[in-house]
């Protein structure tokens, strides 16, 4: 069930009430209840994939226990390898089988050979990219002895399937989330209120910003061959806000829902479009995934240590894998590749850790230009992310830079929004800018009720309800 659906609006209050009024006295029942409702939540999408998540959970639970019972390096390696191979194997099969088959066939056709290999009609289990990485973080941390394995299977299963973050993150670390299942949660009013406000903000980002932009973005991408440069640029910018509003909105709802149940999840977005360079952008965008890759891929490869060749190699590996994680399409790999190209100069000149704090109010012209430049680079890369094929992406970009195609007034007119959307996006940027020292605008107590009621009102009148759009990251 989608977070912005009537189903979830009914599901959550029921879960909340049962959790805090029926099962709250016992830790075991609290966790068991979360397991049951999480599987119910997941099964709502497609009950057939419950078996898969159950199997992954059981496998890694057992492997965790076995890791604790042996000090033999080879046995421990074997156990970890088993966990990685099985989990990545499932992910690879469901997500990438057809991609590899199609490209294999195409590669052979370049040599004049045609192969008769059938692709399969595979449905991608919702959330597999997320919970797979989450369970892997457990087995890897247990292997590294950073975490003691648990023999409480209920806690472990609850950690894997915890419904607020099950289908689209944040990808939690076992070291952060699992210990929270060992202690009975006690209702905390401030935490619950903060969670509620975060849910409201997340819904605004998704239903007003993301879904409004989506209407324009879809129309622009479907007709890009006939549109002028300015419209295409606008389309790319709107997509930047669509994907940001969509994904960060989802994360906010996930984190907010978790707070309602007494859990603290990691922050997933930290105003990425106010970044002054690409390195800062990647410290602020999809933080749970980028830190996962940093800790479990980049650093084991050597990170930024080693010679220049190794540094370059590591950067490309991390961004290409990150791109590929998003989907079985060359466009995602191209997106990752571009980001690697952006990042590399900063790393090689040791400027990748230059902007560690949030940009201040005393905004210099240099900072402003840096932010605009960084934003432009990310928007350029988003064109590949959004396009169906590499060719489409290149055609799109070619039309943008075709100056014969430039018109001052956008030729695109859609019933719902034209100039209004631009104003809405600017309004959103101003709100975020104003509150960039907080996790969300409602954490600042000044004019809290006015802000809350205004956002609720705007969500009512500007929200896209008619075209029930799924969250973009569900497809990953």
């Amino acid at each position, binding site marked *: 069930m989608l977070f912005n659906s009537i189903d979830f609006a009914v599901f959550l209050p029921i879960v909340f009430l049962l959790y805090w009024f029926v099962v709250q006295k016992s830790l075991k029942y609290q966790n068991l209840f979360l397991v049951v409702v999480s599987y119910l939540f997941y099964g709502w999408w497609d009950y057939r994939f419950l078996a898969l998540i159950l199997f992954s959970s059981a496998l890694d639970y057992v492997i965790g226990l076995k890791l604790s019972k042996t000090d033999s390096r080879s046995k421990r390696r074997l156990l970890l390898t088993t966990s990685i191979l099985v989990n990545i194997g499932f992910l690879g099969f469901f997500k990438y089988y057809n991609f590899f088959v199609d490209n294999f066939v195409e590669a052979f056709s370049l040599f004049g050979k045609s192969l008769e290999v059938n692709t399969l009609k595979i449905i991608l289990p919702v959330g597999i990219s997320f919970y797979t990485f989450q369970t892997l973080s457990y087995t890897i941390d247990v292997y590294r002895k950073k975490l003691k394995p648990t023999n409480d299977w209920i806690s472990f299963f609850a950690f894997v399937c915890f419904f607020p973050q099950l289908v689209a993150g944040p990808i939690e670390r076992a070291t952060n989330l699992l210990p929270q299942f060992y202690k009975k949660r006690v*209702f905390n009013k401030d935490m619950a209120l903060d969670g509620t406000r975060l849910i409201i903000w997340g819904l605004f980002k998704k239903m007003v910003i993301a879904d409004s932009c989506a209407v324009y973005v879809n129309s622009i991408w479907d007709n890009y061959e006939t549109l002028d440069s300015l419209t295409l640029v606008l389309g790319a910018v709107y997509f930047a806000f669509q994907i940001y509003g969509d994904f960060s909105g989802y994360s906010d709802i996930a984190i907010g829902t978790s707070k309602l149940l007494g859990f603290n999840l990691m922050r997933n977005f930290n105003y990425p479009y106010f970044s002054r360079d690409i390195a800062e952008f990647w410290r602020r965008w999809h933080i749970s995934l980028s830190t996962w890759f940093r800790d479990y891929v980049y650093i084991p490869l050597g990170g930024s240590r080693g010679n220049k060749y190794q540094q370059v190699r590591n950067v490309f590996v991390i961004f290409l894998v990150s791109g590929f994680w998003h989907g079985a399409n060359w466009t995602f790999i191209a997106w990752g590749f571009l980001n690697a190209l952006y990042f590399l100069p900063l790393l090689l000149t040791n400027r990748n850790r230059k902007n560690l704090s949030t940009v201040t109010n005393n905004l210099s012209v240099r900072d402003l230009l840096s932010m605009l430049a960084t934003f432009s680079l990310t928007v350029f890369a988003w064109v590949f992310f959004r396009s169906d094929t590499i060719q489409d992406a290149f055609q799109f970009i070619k039309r943008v830079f075709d100056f014969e195609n430039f018109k001052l007034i956008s030729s695109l007119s859609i019933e*719902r929004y034209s100039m*209004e959307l631009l104003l809405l996006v600017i309004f959103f940027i101003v709100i975020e800018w104003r509150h960039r020292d907080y996790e969300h605008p409602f954490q600042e107590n000044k004019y809290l009720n006015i802000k*809350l009621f205004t956002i609720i009102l705007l969500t*009512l*009148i500007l*929200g896209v*309800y008619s*075209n029930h759009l799924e969250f973009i990251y569900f497809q990953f």
Partner: protein
Amino acid sequence: MIGFAKRIATLIIVLVIMAYALDAIYTAIYNSASPRTKTQYVMQLNKTSYDAIFMGSSRVENHIKTKVFKDNDLKAINLGMSGANLNENLLTLKLLIDKGVTAQKIFIQMDHNFENEAISKGVTASFLPFINDSVVASHYKQQLDSYWVNKNIPFYRYAVNDAKIGLREITMNIFGKKPRVPLDDGYIPLLNSMKQGSYNLPNQVSDVNKIYNKIEKLKSDNNLNIIYFTAPFCENTKNINYFDELKEKHIPELHDYSRLFNDDNMFDGCGHLNDKGAEKFTNKILGDFYGKK
């Protein structure tokens, strides 16, 4: 927990108040603003008399050039709505009767819409602001799955149909932005000439259409002069003899103009005439039913 519950209750109360207030504001605006849609126009009609009223889908909206009637001193209105099914024609007819609107002749487009008894989601959205009207309410009560929520949950219908009747449309109503075409005329011309169009009609006629039966009942109960007609299709239309079967099976009095034109220059697309074709077709109607040339 009590403190939290109080805050949540406050938020819910504020949300409910906002929903009620917005619903009242939107509904009042749709009821009183200068009409921007044919639905609004019909809802604001009151005891008017016409020589001819045309109802149907875009195959009326783009086909009946009302100016031709006006040029012949006849009062006509084109109430064709793009996407409308027979179901919406029935509702429009009920509203016209309720509002005391009379016509010498009421032309209802009848083609393969005979195969469809369902409501049209897009056109239904335009009627939802008026769901508290007794005629509209009784029409949708048995037909609209979400009737109860649309009627009783404040603002729900405006939120769910935001693209059609949401903030943008309300804003245009407030600022009196003129509709695409004058609504007392209702004709929207298509300006292209077709190149190699085709159309597929169903290969058989349904045994029954309950909506048609209801229109017939209204016709007899209110002594209406309803004329069923089929607007032209292009020559490259498969199963064009569908209308012969429709005439034979259900509507012997059907005026079948489906084969009126074999010149593609009259068409914008195989199922739609362009402005030139619409003018010729309207003149044909005028000649056949009003003796005018």
